[in-house]
């Protein structure tokens, strides 16, 4: 009896064997070998263009569907809930307000309508405030066939549904296993090779090889995420003995940047798999890992960073001064610690394209594993990296002002909104200083003319008395 089932098993085994072999060959030839040598076939960009065309088609169909039902699609930025003004300064808005009131004055003074400015800003923040927006994923104007980005799109026709179903099959059946295999390969290679390189006695050889090994493993990891990265202004790449500063959206930022250069990472020492990777990396190149207790000691942190920076043979340090993950529409306050060290700062702006997969890690909603799974089942991670010209602290500038200057440069380059808020605002309350700032700005609009009005009133009194 058992013999009759044998041939079927044999056939099954053979099929399985062949498909696995094909799979691995494909993986090796098209992905791992190019990653090792740093060569690209351009497949990922072609994939990106095709996807864009498909999304446009899907959006068109949804709009047609909505029109049939005589409703409008909700687009967060084009037709918002309240009449929103584009963010402009207090002075500009006041002038516009006064102009619309039909004022014939030549100089601005207090007007009853000035309250409208504060009123409107207040209502805008009730409907949607900047801080909450930063800690939730960015909304898209058009749908990218991922259920997780579907907030407002309800008119989904049959064809789009079919397309979506096909997309699910492709993403979870083909792309996810491929990416997981690559990620596992990349990480194990990193562990093994860095440990091996760490055994070499010759320091120069060690650093040369460690650079090659790190770059290779990061390239494999980048392919594991199907990350399509465009680097701009590479002539400004960070040099040894400097600090590289970037806006923070996700832990993947590290892989994105390290793909193009070698950095020393700074962070807390973890346990488990992360800890193993950290210890392995340290064997071949200098990274700075702090124990949990040491993190609180600011002097110790500053000293270690300072020592590292002073040694010109060591790689530039990579720091994310926001201290927490922001959703890549804005840049929040930079912590001044890294700007107090006396060295050159190399700002880097990273901007993700959310249409292919939202890279933002909402740590309150997803754990690390869940997040990685979502990343690997998105279409792709597309981002642009700009290397900005190096900056130094100027005479008479303190660390906070320097930090704000760097932040403004990064925000301007990446097209992000420059916010005054602290990333820690998830938990703490707003300081009174901000309210005073608003009052000061408003008084500046009036103040010049209040004093002249007083003089005018005084003169008139004087005339009537005489």
């Amino acid at each position, binding site marked *: 009896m058992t013999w009759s089932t044998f041939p079927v098993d044999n056939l099954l085994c053979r099929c399985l064997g062949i498909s696995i072999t094909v799979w691995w060959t494909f993986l090796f030839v098209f992905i791992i070998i190019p990653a090792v040598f740093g060569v690209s076939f351009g497949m990922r960009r072609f994939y990106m263009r095709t996807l864009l065309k498909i999304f446009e088609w899907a959006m068109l169909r949804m709009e047609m569907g909505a029109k049939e039902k005589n*409703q409008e*699609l*909700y687009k967060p930025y084009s*037709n918002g*809930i*309240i*009449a929103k003004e584009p963010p402009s300064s207090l002075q500009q808005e006041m002038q516009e307000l006064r102009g619309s*009131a*039909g*004022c*014939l*004055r*030549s100089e601005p*003074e*207090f*007007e*009853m*309508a*000035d*309250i*409208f400015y*504060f*009123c*409107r*800003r*207040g*209502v*805008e*923040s*009730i*409907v949607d*405030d900047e*801080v*909450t927006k930063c800690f939730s994923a960015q909304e898209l104007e058009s749908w990218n066939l991922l259920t997780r980005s*579907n907030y*407002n*799109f*309800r008119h989904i026709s049959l064809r789009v549904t079919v397309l979506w179903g096909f997309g699910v099959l492709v993403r979870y059946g083909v792309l996810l296993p491929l990416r997981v295999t690559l990620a596992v390969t990349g990480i194990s290679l990193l562990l093994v090779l860095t440990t091996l390189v760490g055994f070499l006695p010759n320091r120069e050889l060690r650093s040369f090889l460690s650079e090659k090994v790190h770059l290779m493993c990061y390239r494999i990891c980048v392919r594991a995420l199907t990350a399509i990265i465009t680097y701009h202004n590479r002539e400004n790449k960070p040099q040894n003995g400097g600090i590289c500063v970037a806006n923070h959206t996700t832990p993947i930022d590290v892989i994105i940047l390290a793909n193009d250069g070698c950095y020393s990472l700074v962070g807390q020492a973890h346990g488990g798999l992360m800890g193993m990777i950290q210890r392995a990396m340290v064997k071949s190149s200098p990274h700075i890992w702090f124990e949990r207790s040491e993190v609180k000691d600011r002097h110790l942190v500053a000293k270690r960073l300072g020592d590292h920076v002073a040694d010109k043979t060591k790689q530039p340090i990579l720091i994310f001064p926001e201290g927490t993950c922001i959703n890549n529409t804005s840049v929040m306050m930079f912590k001044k610690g890294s700007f107090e060290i006396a060295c050159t700062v190399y700002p880097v702006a990273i901007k993700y394209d959310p249409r292919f997969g939202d890279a933002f890690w909402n740590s309150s909603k997803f754990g690390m594993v869940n997040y990685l799974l979502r990343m690997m089942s998105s279409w792709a991670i597309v981002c642009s990296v700009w290397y900005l010209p190096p900056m130094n602290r100027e005479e008479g500038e303190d660390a906070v002002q320097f930090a704000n200057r760097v932040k403004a440069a990064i925000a301007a380059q990446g097209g992000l909104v420059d916010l005054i*808020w602290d990333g820690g*605002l998830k938990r703490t*309350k*707003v300081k009174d200083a*901000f*309210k005073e*700032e*608003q*009052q*000061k700005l408003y*008084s500046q609009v*009036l*103040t010049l003319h*209040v*004093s002249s*009005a*007083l003089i005018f*009133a005084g003169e*008139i*009194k004087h*005339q*009537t008395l005489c």
Partner: protein
Amino acid sequence: MGSSSSSMDHIPNAEELMQETGFSAAHLLRLYERFEFLDKDQTGELRPEDFGAIGGLALNPIGDRIISAFFSPGQETVDFPSFVRVLAHFRPNGTNRTRNGTQQEPVNSRTRKLKFAFQLYDQDRDGKISRAELLQVLRAMLGIQVTEEQLQSIAERAIQEADLDRDDAISFDEFKKVQQVSPHPQTPTKETPLHPTEGGR
């Protein structure tokens, strides 16, 4: 392929609210999600502290006045329909949809907005902005940046210009008139005031 957990069924009297305020279904749903987000202890109603948690409102000089505009006098909580009705004053004009034979003015008309702003000044709801109330608002908007005398003179001038019936307070009609044309004492006016003004003070 629903995305969020709440749907239109959770919103009480959704149809009526949409008619009354002019918000579309998608907008109403967004506002409901925002309401639920602000309602941290899930009571179904908002308290002043819930508004206070919003950063942009906390730094607004008249933030607490805007918050109290949502609460009817004597009430300590605001439910979703009231929340939406207040926000409806600021709906963009372009999304006004024609309703069957409605004669009343749309909720987001200029007059309604002016009324909202008027009530920000007139905290005791007596229909007039007294000198004291005007001073309070000015102090809130300017803080410690100006002296008491400067504040008094600004308030004085504002009342002089707006108060046409000389009762030392600004009524809603006078407030509306000020928005249309604000004549400077020295430049020629377009509109003849109710009482002839003296030339100079």
